[in-house]
């Protein structure tokens, strides 16, 4: 074991490899910070070149991009309320509120630290207990997955303070939006309102950015506008004055604050690692679920949604903690559990290594080197993030009259660039309008986005379960794991309804 570690570190800590890791992290943070673009896109672009690189260098580059991208998504989420990557959607809920309260630096640092802690936890789990965890992951079939999806939707809806009914309703709307397009089993188009452009369904990026970002930008913009016309003093005016007096030295994350967020970070790390190991569950689900659980167990749950650092920490740590564990099914069985894992799998194949149970035994050195690189990339991420964050927090504090137009344009053009699709931009603006309407009618937005993200997976799991059970609903409660999820969901609803009563 020790010999192996020494050999592997000779590979992993070669100067060129280190250089590639840094290059990758830098590239990843930058791409992740641009709304619509993500690390996955860069990894896909670089795949063919992997063949020409030494495996250790190629791994360094890809790992760097991946990790940088995971954290980079939170920069745009906090600074402009635009989730740079789907995984950062939950981060934008509290992150952007914290920024509006004049605390961008605190928010960004919380995101960075929790991201690195969550990621490292998940890497350690990958290195030491990949095989047992993979066995647990395999017990999740369609029945269990449907229960997991239902549980997380109910959890998020139940957390919409005092508005459980509205939360469930928007979750249902999110699911309905996800149903637009082709039926995954029969292939027939449905709910397209006769528009052939919609037969491909709505893409994730425009819906996500439209609901969260465009609606926010537009509502803030119209408040500014009205203030300019009517000379009205409202909360935006207060913010503007706050921003003018922004002093970064007063916006430092203190040790006490950091310690207070640790519990949320650990919850995120645990939830993220577990969800990451399940094939097909995904970063956004992990982030929203950690956010929900952290709120449940927080000592200040009322701050969530209003710029709570705990909210940022749980979402960001949950999102990043999928980074290591998403490889568990790939290493243990050769099953890519996520788009990123599939791309890494392709890279392994191009380098002559077959993902699967024989991967570790056939390529011990290089895999151990990869493990070391995974941990090392977190340090690079921490360092680079630390160096760059002061600049990012200043950018976040540009006067809203100048910033809102810029963010508005970037979100539109970035959405177009993600798929080179004109339809996506119209979907973006439609989602923006929907977001504005729901905001004005005081609907929570997070359940809608989560419903949209997990809608297709939930539908597939439900229909697969029913096919396996011969068309009988009873099949859904045939698994003890599934029953556990349903009981927990029911208990949560009861708990929240009564906790609310008691407070009033």
């Amino acid at each position: 074991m020790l010999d192996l570690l020494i050999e592997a570190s000779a590979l992993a800590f070669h100067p060129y490899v280190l250089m590639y890791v840094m290059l990758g992290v830098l590239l990843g943070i930058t791409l992740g910070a641009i709304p619509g673009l993500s690390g996955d896109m860069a990894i896909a672009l670089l795949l063919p070149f992997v063949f020409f690189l030494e495996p250790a260098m190629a791994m360094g580059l890809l790992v760097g991009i991946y990790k940088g991208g995971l954290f980079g998504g939170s920069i745009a989420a906090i600074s402009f309320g635009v989730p740079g990557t789907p995984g950062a959607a939950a981060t934008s809920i509290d992150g952007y509120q914290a920024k509006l309260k004049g605390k961008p630096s605190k928010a960004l640092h919380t995101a960075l630290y929790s991201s690195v802690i969550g990621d490292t936890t998940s890497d350690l789990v990958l290195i030491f207990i990949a095989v047992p965890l993979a066995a647990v992951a395999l017990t999740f079939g369609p029945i269990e997955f449907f229960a997991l999806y239902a549980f997380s939707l109910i959890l998020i809806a139940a957390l919409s303070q005092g508005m459980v009914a509205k939360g469930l309703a928007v979750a249902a709307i999110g699911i309905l939006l996800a149903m637009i397009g082709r039926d995954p089993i029969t292939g027939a188009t449905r709910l397209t309102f006769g528009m052939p452009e919609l037969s491909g369904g709505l893409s994730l990026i425009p819906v996500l950015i439209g609901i969260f970002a465009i609606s926010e930008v537009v509502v803030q913009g119209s408040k500014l506008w009205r203030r300019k016309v009517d000379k009205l003093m409202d909360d935006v005016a207060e913010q503007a004055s706050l921003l003018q007096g922004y002093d970064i030295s007063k916006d430092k994350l203190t040790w006490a604050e950091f310690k207070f967020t640790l519990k949320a970070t650990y919850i995120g790390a645990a939830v993220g690692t577990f969800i990451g190991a399940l094939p097909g569950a995904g970063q956004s689900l992990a982030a929203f679920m950690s956010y929900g659980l952290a709120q449940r167990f927080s000592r200040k749950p009322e701050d969530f949604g209003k710029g709570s650092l705990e909210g940022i920490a749980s979402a960001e740590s949950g999102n990043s903690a999928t980074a290591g564990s998403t490889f568990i099914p790939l290493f243990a069985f050769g099953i890519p559990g996520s788009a990123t894992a599939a791309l890494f799998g392709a890279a392994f194949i191009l380098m002559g290594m077959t993902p699967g149970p024989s991967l570790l035994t056939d390529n011990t050195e290089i895999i151990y080197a990869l493990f070391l690189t995974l941990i090392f990339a977190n340090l690079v991420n921490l360092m680079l993030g630390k160096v760059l964050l002061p600049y990012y927090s200043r950018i976040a504090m540009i006067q809203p009259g100048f910033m809102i137009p810029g963010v508005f344009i970037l979100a539109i053009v970035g959405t177009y660039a993600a798929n080179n699709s004109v339809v996506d931009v119209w979907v973006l603006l439609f989602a923006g309008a929907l977001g504005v309407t729901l905001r004005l009618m005081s609907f929570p937005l997070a359940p809608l986005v989560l419903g949209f993200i997990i809608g297709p997976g939930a539908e597939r799991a439900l229909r697969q379960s029913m096919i396996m059970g011969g068309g009988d609903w009873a099949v859904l409660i045939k698994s003890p794991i599934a029953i556990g999820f349903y009981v927990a969901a029911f208990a949560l609803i009861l708990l929240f309804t009564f906790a609310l009563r008691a407070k009033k």
Partner: protein
Amino acid sequence: MTFKLSITAVAVSAAMLTLSAGTALASNGDSLGSDPIRIVMPYGAGGSTDITARIIAANAAEHCGSRIDVVSMPGAGGMEGLQFVADAEPNGHTILMADYSATITQTLTEDTPWEVEDWVPIVHLTDWKPTVYVKADHDIQSIEDWIELAEAEPNSLIFGHADPLSLVHLPLVMLEQETGIQNVHLPTTGGGETRTMILGGHIDLGMTLPPSIVSNVNSGEVTAIGVFADERSDVLPDVPTFQEAGYDVSFEAPLLVYAFSSVPESIQQELADCIMTGLDTDTAQRMSEQASAGLDDVQGLESAQAIYRDTTQRVKDVLAAINQD
């Protein structure tokens, strides 16, 4: 410990990181210009088709005279990718790479703005052999076990395949027609999900392509029981074909590169030639071998079109038989 870190490798990667946009020269009439070429692949990134497309992109670029990008468009069961290629300017810079389920089956079963003949295959890359497999500790361990059990208790076995009527589903339909057995057909998102369910014991049988399960077969986690092909697969030489077991069902799936029919024939020929030249190089062959992509017998335009016509006829026959039921 003999890992050489070559300077050339660094140079190559530095070059690609500049992400330079190719110089745009207008393509003139009937020959391939130097604008970037886009290979549209109607599947998700990271799968076997993706790897093959990227091998083409990396090797054929210099012969085709411009950069080649691989675009993954898995939306709407691949229909979005086909739509994109059909709508593109007919100058040969947007081509499609797909198996027959996107171009033939879906065109025949769905209401599409194009016909099967609108897709002109220009290169025949390889043939895939659909393979049936089970978990290693399952009661079924051979074709005979399966047929016997399915005959004893119809609809008791759950069979996972990717999209309905895809290349890993049609052979099952044909076998059921041939033998009269009945299974529960469970659609999945693809080979990865099928394998997860097999390994987790949620379903009984699954169908996939050989390269994706070789490593699980070798480690003894799953057993491949039969191949729907005329000959055994190179990577799974111990697995019998269904013909050997006495069932005359065989349906190999050709992987083809297509141009849309509005692209001038001279450009089609030019594209076919440069892709074949690119794949004939040592680097390309080495890449293909590492990825088990099977690009050692790439055929040009004529062979591709012959096999396309043949496959179309077979798919039509199967669909007609399904509709009779």
